[in-house]
């Protein structure tokens, strides 16, 4: 047990060192993608908690991200920036003068998303399966429509531009520490949660609701817990995403965003933390690398005119292949463990 803890600690430290090395050696573009990976790790894990571990098919993630992103943006922006943004209709006075440090804003963003999660969860978590999916999808759209129409708070369809960079100092080196730092924290919290008694109860609900209830598990309470924790991290992920891109508007939080995260979770394995992390990194990088497909392609002297969105076809094919041949995703419900690596080493040594 101790050996494993040491290994975990060493790898965390090694990872932090790696972050610094990457920070120095990678260009701005690569670094940005790397940061995006970290954010998608947070988002994938939060969705996986709800969809994978408790088995609630929720499609409301974009809504909670929107709540987080807007909260954080409005809390961190300076008065001048807000005045500049809200030229069509002035911002409400009580929001105009608020400006808090980034870490505090981030926490408030998470809490606001969690509150939204609680408010939405209370009625919809009584539903099951597809009905739950449709209800959460609907609520996520409602959030988006509300944000489009509350001109004096969210600046409506115009969106908010000029969000301050992630971090306290506003320097670029700080960004990666926040994104991956929080991603790492999310991973740790999820692992601890899943391996606790509550995590077991969550899995029991996923496996068989009726049996779980007969074992004395309060279904509604536990579903709410997972939903609220999931929305909290979704809010934080959304806030980081907004600040990384530097501009937010309601269209950013379309259903498509939820589907991207669902794609990551399904590819990685519904109910696997390891799977979600790997898949989040791979899919985010692939989304950028495959951009060549969107442009003009020259094959053997012929030029095929670029069609924007061609790269998404790759993901569609990938998803279909997963559904056909690999139903449980990359990892299924399996998790990375040191035992696995140590045993493997022993095996190779023996042979």
């Amino acid at each position, binding site marked *: 047990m101790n050996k494993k803890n040491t290994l975990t600690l060493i790898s965390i430290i090694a990872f932090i060192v790696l972050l610094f090395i990457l920070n120095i050696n990678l260009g701005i573009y690569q670094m940005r993608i790397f940061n995006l990976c970290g954010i998608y790790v947070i988002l994938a894990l939060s969705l996986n908690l709800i969809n994978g571990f408790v088995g609630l098919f929720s499609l409301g993630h974009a809504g909670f991200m929107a709540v987080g992103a807007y909260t954080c943006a409005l809390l961190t922006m300076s008065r001048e920036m807000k005045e500049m943004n809200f030229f069509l209709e002035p911002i409400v006075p009580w929001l105009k003068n608020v400006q808090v440090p980034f870490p505090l804003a981030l926490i408030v963003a998470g809490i606001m998303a969690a509150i939204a999660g609680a408010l939405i969860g209370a009625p919809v978590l009584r539903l099951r399966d597809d009905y739950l999916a449709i209800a959460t999808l609907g609520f996520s759209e409602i959030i988006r429509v509300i944000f489009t129409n509350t001109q004096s708070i969210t600046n409506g369809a115009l969106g908010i531009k000029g969000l301050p960079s992630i971090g306290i100092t506003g320097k670029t080196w700080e960004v990666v520490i926040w994104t991956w730092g929080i991603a790492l924290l999310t991973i740790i919290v999820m692992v601890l*949660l899943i391996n606790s008694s509550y995590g*077991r109860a969550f*899995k029991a609900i996923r496996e068989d609701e009726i049996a779980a*209830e*007969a074992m*004395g598990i*309060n279904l509604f309470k536990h579903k709410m817990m997972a939903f609220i924790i999931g929305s909290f991290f979704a809010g934080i992920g959304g806030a980081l995403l907004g600040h990384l891109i530097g501009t937010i508007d309601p269209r950013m939080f379309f259903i498509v965003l939820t589907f991207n995260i669902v794609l990551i979770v399904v590819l990685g394995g519904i109910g696997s933390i390891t799977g979600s992390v790997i898949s989040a990194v791979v899919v985010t990088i692939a989304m950028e690398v495959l951009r060549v497909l969107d442009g003009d392609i020259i094959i053997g002297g012929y030029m095929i005119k670029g069609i924007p969105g061609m790269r998404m076809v790759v993901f569609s094919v990938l998803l279909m292949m997963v559904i056909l041949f690999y139903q449980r995703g990359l990892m299924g419900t399996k998790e990375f463990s040191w035992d696995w690596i140590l045993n493997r080493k022993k095996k190779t040594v023996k042979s």
Partner: protein
Amino acid sequence: MTVLRTDKITMKFGGITAVSQFDMKIDKNEIIGLIGPNGAGKTTCFNMITGVYIPTEGKIYFEDKNITGIKTHEITKLGIARTFQNIRLFKELSVLDNVLIANHMRLGSNLFSSVIKTPDYRKKEKKITDKSISLLKDVGLDNIMYEKSSSLPYGKQRRLEIARALATDPKLLILDEPAAGMNPQESLELMDFIREIRDRFDITILMIEHHMQVVMGVCERIYVLDHGIMIADGTPTEIQNNPKVIEAYLGVE
């Protein structure tokens, strides 16, 4: 001492009366059978007792406490555990996890302390793990406790389901067709097993069973339902010779 008493419980689904005016009284440490032809309303009775359905009329008392209309998980907490007709294990989870889940409601740790793993939580976790392992030893499943529960043979899955129900520290254990799909040898083992757990865990058992050999062999008293109406109750010998019961099962000449 009366453990469970139902007072004229009736369950109607629309125009159909599944159970009508059913009275039952179970004393401590008894093994009671509930039998009847298919569709007689036996499982409906169980579902009313465990809070899945709320009876249309009548009241249910558990240890003299009115439990009518209380939610399923609260009833489990009060001390009524059940198994299911079609086995409902947490398939993807290990045998040990299945039993540990049953301990969750009595753990008494909040979410935060179990995530940060406070010493208090660790102590409790250790306690329930030890308790679960010793329970698995009692039922003879300790050698396979890290196996996935769906990989177990049928008889052992039944046994695990009973073990899981026992892990909730029940006073009354309700078994829904525990011998379904078992061969004669397994049924005999089951009979011994049921008596054994009654004595070892000091509990009361109520079971639905179609397997007459098991029912007559293990139950001390039997209630017979037909079309939602109780047609007989008494000792196995009384039931076997009751003309109404014979009529319900075999028809009249």
